[in-house]
């Protein structure tokens, strides 16, 4: 069963059963973060800064505390002061002190919406009224929003202890530029000298929010004995536990975090905003506290991913061979250091085998919410630049965009700019599949154009735990530590069912809380099907071994003489003896007499995640009179290793693509002159609606990853990497206008079309 080349032998993996968590979600009974209750529960609300940058001179909570029904008011004074220390708990870089200050401002507020106090009261309306009674005296400071302006001399400096890291000599003055990283190989100057054509462009992207439908929500109880329980929606119950422990000075063993269903995360729920506040309020009030953000809070106070500036220089021979490639990616970190400029730099040239290449990442703080992970953090931003430039180069040289990419494609054995040598990758296969797709033959009318772009994401492995228990009737319960944000319960059960040779409906997959399953790194990095899948397979193989052992005991033969297939134990060949096969149910019924419960655990630190590549083709129609872009056709081809549940793999690809289309066309953060966010709602922060989109054809290419029992690779992040460049390239094909700034919204595109006189 571990021979991944034998796809035809698989009975469960690759099929499309109904998801185990589907019915509850369809009928509205699933318990999300804001649904849990506890006896004696009260309600929390936050007080947020109206200023982009200000010193907190005084906070007076007396009036709020005096309001009838108010049980607790907290400020930074109620939270331990945390020392600067790098955290490796979530996805992407984070510093415990910064996270603490981000949750609850200490001394200074750094963005509009920064929390300065929180209250808890016997009703939500009292809590909100109390929040308005908290008096905060500010000394308003000059602010800076744009990353390029933040780098300029004389810009307001946010932190007096941030000195640019990664430059020589070490700076002596604090700066908004937190860090610079560089990846380089070959000889850039020689590469550009050898080029027949050089394209040099600067691209700009807007910050975009993950826009999960479920706002952040939790309930937290800090009991009199110091034992804490948190029920919340997150991408990692162990992540929430670790952050709460560190930020509040509580032992990890005193906190139990129960994962709720999660209404979307996309990376934005890989850190905490409310949970430590709810615990601190609960500690002070002596009551469980529920906190639920509204959408305005979500936009002002959480996420997004960075906006940034991407400078690209690309050189190629007339035949399309890329001789040199250079990119500098300057990303907004938000109020505290830690943008995804590292992965942005690492991913932007990863699709290509380029002899002379460089990618530089620059991390810049400004008066915006601290960025959070968002689906392939950083890669979509840098790739918008590099894949736009590759398209322009192909256009200039008169080459087909797919052929241009095939000519320079990364293959097995290619040493990536960021270090590793690729193995078992399927980039060329995605290009070939795109080339063969009917989308490329579809006829285009007036004002219509076709764009192609590709993308890369690493995918990761890491620590995961799972346990499997055989019930008395032969059904099983499968517990893993990975919150299910993309259908992972289904795929976990399917892998176990495949190994056991039973129907997937006989396995009930559960996401365990921190007290009922071993440590599991959060759901992120497209790691769950790969890494937690390996833990599940390990546990399942152990259960099969035990089942064979129990059959051997019943038959009184050697365990080596028992084989397991199709859900039953069989004697292995004639020499083993003649016995009727024993089904899982038969063995389960006799478990008490053959050694007791049959259970097993899997615990892995998975290595060897297979990197993912995608090739996207999009057809658009531009209304030249209004700048409105209609997406006519969209084909997203991706190497997925092996699709465990193809519907959910396709869903991931379609979902990532849709978010990318929103990023390309309309999503952006709009600030007033005062540095206040002006579009903190889904009305003016425009994610695509269903009627904006065609059916997105997700094409699965399967180049298996031999490190996984079934060949799976991560699939959730790659699909958001190519769309922005693909759409820009299609718009250019339709109008002749090259858009270098996102979003390509109607007013911007109309102005560009008019300026070009087309």
């Amino acid at each position, binding site marked *: 069963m571990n021979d991944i080349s034998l796809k035809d032998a698989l009975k469960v993996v690759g099929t499309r059963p109904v998801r185990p968590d589907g019915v509850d979600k369809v009928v509205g009974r699933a318990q999300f973060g804001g649904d849990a209750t506890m006896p004696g529960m009260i309600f929390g609300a936050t007080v947020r800064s109206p200023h982009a940058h200000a010193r907190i001179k005084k906070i007076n909570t007396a009036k709020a505390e005096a309001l009838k029904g108010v049980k607790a008011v907290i400020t930074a004074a109620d939270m331990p002061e945390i020392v600067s220390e790098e955290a490796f708990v979530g996805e992407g870089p984070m510093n415990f002190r910064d996270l603490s200050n981000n949750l609850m401002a200490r001394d200074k507020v750094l963005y509009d919406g920064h929390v300065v106090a929180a209250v808890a009261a016997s009703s939500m309306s009292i809590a909100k009224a109390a929040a308005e009674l908290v008096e905060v005296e500010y000394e308003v400071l000059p602010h800076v929003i744009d990353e390029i302006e933040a780098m300029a001399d004389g810009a307001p400096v946010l932190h007096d202890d941030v000195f640019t890291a990664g430059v020589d000599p070490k700076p002596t003055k604090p700066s908004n530029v937190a860090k610079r990283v560089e990846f380089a190989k070959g000889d850039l100057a020689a590469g550009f000298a050898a080029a027949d054509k050089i394209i040099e462009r600067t691209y700009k992207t807007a910050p975009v929010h993950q826009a999960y439908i479920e706002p952040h929500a939790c309930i937290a109880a800090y009991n009199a004995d110091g034992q804490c329980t948190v029920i919340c929606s997150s991408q990692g119950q162990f992540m929430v536990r670790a952050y709460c422990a560190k930020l509040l000075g509580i032992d990890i063993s005193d906190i139990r975090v129960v994962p709720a269903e999660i209404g979307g995360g996309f990376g934005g729920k890989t850190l905490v905003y409310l949970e430590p506040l709810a615990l601190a309020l609960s500690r002070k009030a002596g009551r469980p506290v529920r906190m639920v953000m509204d959408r305005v809070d979500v936009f002002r106070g959480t996420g997004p991913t960075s906006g940034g500036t991407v400078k690209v220089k690309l050189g190629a021979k007339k035949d399309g061979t890329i001789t040199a490639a250079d990119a500098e990616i300057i990303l907004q970190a938000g109020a505290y250091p830690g943008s995804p400029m590292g992965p942005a730099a690492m991913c932007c040239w990863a699709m290509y085998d380029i002899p002379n290449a460089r990618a530089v990442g620059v991390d810049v703080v400004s008066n915006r919410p601290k960025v959070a992970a968002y689906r392939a953090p950083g890669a979509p931003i840098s790739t918008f630049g590099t894949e736009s430039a590759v398209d322009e180069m192909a256009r200039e040289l008169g080459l087909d965009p797919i052929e241009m990419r095939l000519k320079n494609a990364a293959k097995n054995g290619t040493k990536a700019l960021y270090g590793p040598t690729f193995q078992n990758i399927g980039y060329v296969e995605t290009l070939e599949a795109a080339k063969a797709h009917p989308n490329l033959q579809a006829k285009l009318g007036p004002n219509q154009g076709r764009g192609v772009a590709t993308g890369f994401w690493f995918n990761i492995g890491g620590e995961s735990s799972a346990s499997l228990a055989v019930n008395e009737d032969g059904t099983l319960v499968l517990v893993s530590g990975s919150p299910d944000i993309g259908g992972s319960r289904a795929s976990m059960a399917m892998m176990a069912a495949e190994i056991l040779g039973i129907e997937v409906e006989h396995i009930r997959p559960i996401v365990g809380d921190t007290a009922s399953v071993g440590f599991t790194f959060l759901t992120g990095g497209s790691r769950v099907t790969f890494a937690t899948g390996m833990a599940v397979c390990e546990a399942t193989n152990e259960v099969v071994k035990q089942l064979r052992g129990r059959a051997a005991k019943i038959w009184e033969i050697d365990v080596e003489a028992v084989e397991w297939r199709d859900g039953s134990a069989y004697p292995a060949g004639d020499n083993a003896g003649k016995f009727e096969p024993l089904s899982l149910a038969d063995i389960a019924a006799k478990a008490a007499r053959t050694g007791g419960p049959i259970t097993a655990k899997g615990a892995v630190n998975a290595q060897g995640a297979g990197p993912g590549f995608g090739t996207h083709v999009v057809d658009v129609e531009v209304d030249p009179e209004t700048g409105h872009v209609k997406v006519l056709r969209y084909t997203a081809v991706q190497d997925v290793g092996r699709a465990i549940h193809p519907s959910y793999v396709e869903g991931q690809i379609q979902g990532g693509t849709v978010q990318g289309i929103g990023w390309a066309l309309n999503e952006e953060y709009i600030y007033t002159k005062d540095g206040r966010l002006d*579009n903190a709602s889904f009305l*003016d922060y425009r994610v695509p609606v269903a009627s904006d989109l065609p059916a997105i054809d997700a094409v699965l290419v399967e180049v298996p990853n031999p490190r996984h029992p079934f060949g799976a690779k991560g699939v959730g992040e790659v699909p958001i990497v190519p769309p922005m460049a693909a759409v820009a390239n299609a718009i250019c094909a339709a109008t002749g206008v090259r858009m270098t700034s996102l979003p390509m919204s*109607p007013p911007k595109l*109309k102005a560009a079309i008019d300026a070009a006189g087309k």
Partner: protein
Amino acid sequence: MYSPTYAAPTTVDEAVGLLANASGSARVLSGGTDLIIQMRSGRLRPQTIVDIKNIAGTIGIREEADGWHVGAATPGAEIGENAGLCAAWPGVTEAVQLIGSTQVQGRASFAGNLCNASPAGDSVPGLVAAGAKAVIAGKNGKRTIPVEQVPVSPGRTSLAADEFIYEFIIPKSSGKTADAYLRFIPRTEMDIAVVGCGVCVTLDNNGVCTAAKVSLGAVAPTVLVVDAAAKALIGNKLDDATLAKLDAAAQAACNPISDKRGTIEFRTKVAGVLARRTAAIAFSRAAAR
């Protein structure tokens, strides 16, 4: 703490009395698809809320000799299901159905959209172009005014504190008269008009326009009646020269702001584009009658 009082009177007089005697600010509740959102966000905090939906005549559509009487709080969904009104006034009825989503349509009303007094209200330019009138109830009885006289500036109406809109009267359309409404939004639905345009035309048997009314939304502090645009149409067929004049007249009437939804330049240009496109639909509908 904020705790408003809510009343659901069953007669016009009772409603007027509640509004006239309200201590502090009062708001009329029709569908509530703006009011409740604004109260939740804290932007509006009326002390008194007067729900008019229990008053006979505020919900429902009747065809009478003087026109179509549409109750102030009649939801968009119900308007969309009235085949007679939809056939007579496709522009007016399509416009109200553009507001919000299917769920919002179960409540959203002409009166709410008009009294919210946003220049971007989708149903307003269509009503204006069609020559609809608002019947306003107050302590001095009922008075009837053209719809365009209701909003006076963003968020403000000409109604006195004791007044509310009871119903609308949309004239009966006769002969070769037809209307259309188009809006520009960055998406395809669930959005607010960046520009809106309502056009109503009457044609003679040769396709020459004999009467016209053109209204633009979201390009000025209130919805505009653009007489110059109507003049560009009257006496003409819908040829390129007429369309160019119409485009220019529409652009000339614009007095928009640049904000998060669009720039002055963009709104002005798109107003011209929409005027042409809306007129083309209205002409083709009228010619087919």
